[in-house]
């Protein structure tokens, strides 16, 4: 079983990305959980969301304390939300930032694997505006998910909520995020 933790700020779509990841993992034939950590919900406040992915039925219902992968959607949370908490040195820290992985290592003191991607810029370039989707693209690339499976789930899920042209922009951003890290 793999455990993943997302850090974002309220309104940035970390919870949505977590749920999309669960949809994608289901299509791969996995068992999944996706859940946010709830406090008072406010736009801009740091939030965490979690994924569990397993080949077997997931029975555990505790919180995730020791994730193997951490995805940070908002770079300011490197300081504000202790995203390396519980992350072992074998784990992966994926950060949305224009900075290099060495700079993030310096900033966080984390000595394991750090991957950086400027997801905010990718989203701006694509015109979708939300960094969560290119971050999701990057994350599924890191996890080794097949692109077509992931893309079709993202497309399906976003199409339920968004008009077609916005879905297209997001898919572009998703692909760019994936390409960056595959």
């Amino acid at each position, binding site marked *: 079983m793999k455990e993943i933790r997302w850090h974002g700020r309220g309104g940035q779509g970390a919870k949505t990305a977590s749920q999309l990841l*669960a949809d994608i993992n*289901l299509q791969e034939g996995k068992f*999944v959980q*996706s859940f*946010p950590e709830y406090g008072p919900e406010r736009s801009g406040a740091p939030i965490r969301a979690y994924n569990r992915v397993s080949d077997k039925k997931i*029975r555990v*219902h505790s919180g995730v304390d020791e994730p193997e992968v951490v995805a940070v959607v908002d770079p300011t949370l490197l300081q504000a939300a202790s995203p390396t908490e519980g992350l072992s040195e074998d784990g992966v820290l994926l950060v949305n930032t224009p900075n290099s992985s060495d700079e993030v290592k310096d900033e966080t003191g984390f000595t394991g694997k750090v991957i950086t991607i400027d997801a905010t810029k990718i989203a701006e370039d694509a015109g979708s505006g939300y960094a969560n989707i290119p971050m999701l693209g990057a994350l599924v690339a890191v996890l080794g998910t097949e692109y077509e499976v992931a893309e079709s789930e993202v497309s399906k899920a976003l199409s339920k909520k968004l008009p077609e042209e916005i879905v297209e922009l997001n898919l572009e951003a998703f692909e760019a995020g994936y390409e960056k890290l595959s």
Partner: protein
Amino acid sequence: MSKDNKDVLTGHQVVANAMRQVDPDVVAAYPITPQSEIVEYFSQYVADGKVDSEVITVESEHSAMSACVGSAAAGARTMTATASQGLALMMEIVYIAASMRTPIVMTVANRALSGPINIHCDHSDSMAARDSGVIQLYGEDAQEAYEFTLMAQRLAESEDVLLPVMVTLDGFTLTHTAQVAELLPDEAVSEFVGEYDARYPLLDVENPTTQGPFDMPDYYFEHKLQQVEAMENVPARFLQVQEEFNDLSGSNYDGLFETYKLDDADYAVVVLGSTAGTAKVVVDELREKGKKVGLLKPWLFRPFPGEGIKDALVDKEAVGILDRSLSFGSSGPLYLEISSALAEEDRKPRLYNYTYGLGGRDIKEDQIADVFEDLANPDLEDKMRYIGARQ
């Protein structure tokens, strides 16, 4: 027929889908906090024309249950959902729903009661309703909550039962977690729940009835005994409904409680709801190390299946009973039931009451492993123990 629709759904969505498939005549609910998203999703289904139910939104949970009682008395298949303070405010009418023998199915997203103000999971809300006369079912995951919501309909409406059924699922832990669930086809559920034919509908003007009147000392007592009798009919009916449901879905329900690696176990925990899932993981881990441990999870809490549970636990060395609510000045509700079930036995296990998870406090695998370690210690004192609380 098999389940053909695997999806990633939250507990809220799963229960809302169960309600959609049951297609009740009326859903009366209070539409804002402390309501869960169940009613929100269901209202969306109604607005989208996916279900024909009448949704009555009211100004309080007290009114929600009152409208449910009125609707059910009129002869309509009636459902509602609530949580936490909402159930507390409903409570007066929950007793009335049970005593008027209205087969209302309600889901409760288990959450703490104030105060202090808290929105997170524990079982204080539904445990406060345990003496109200409603049947109570506790689900371990979204799938069980879904399946119990469907079975509840049949159980509630059984001729010799006619009681409200409360289906609970852990707030946040299950309601807000997206997980893999398999829904049955709509037509299959339709066929399973069937048409509801109320026995004495108030709206049947050809055969007028009086419902909910004043009841003096000369008959009140007997009417209460009729509720006792109805409760006594529940276990057999529940088993029958399970059997039919298994035929339909390929599920394996076979009792009033579930046992997990319990038969040859020396040490056992008893726990309701989602924590049973976490505890099963711990049982597996300890079994791999050669420890003889097991678990018992009541599906049915009201009526309490004491006789069967007694037989399942009586030969154990020690049993830890995990309660997610308090009864101040006494032991936890689950502990009291188990302790009472074993009271007459000459030889019985050592029993310990562990309170855990109040107000959403997380419970971890290693904490449950510690319980099993405790149980193996014959000199363990302090019958009342609190998991993970600062003391």
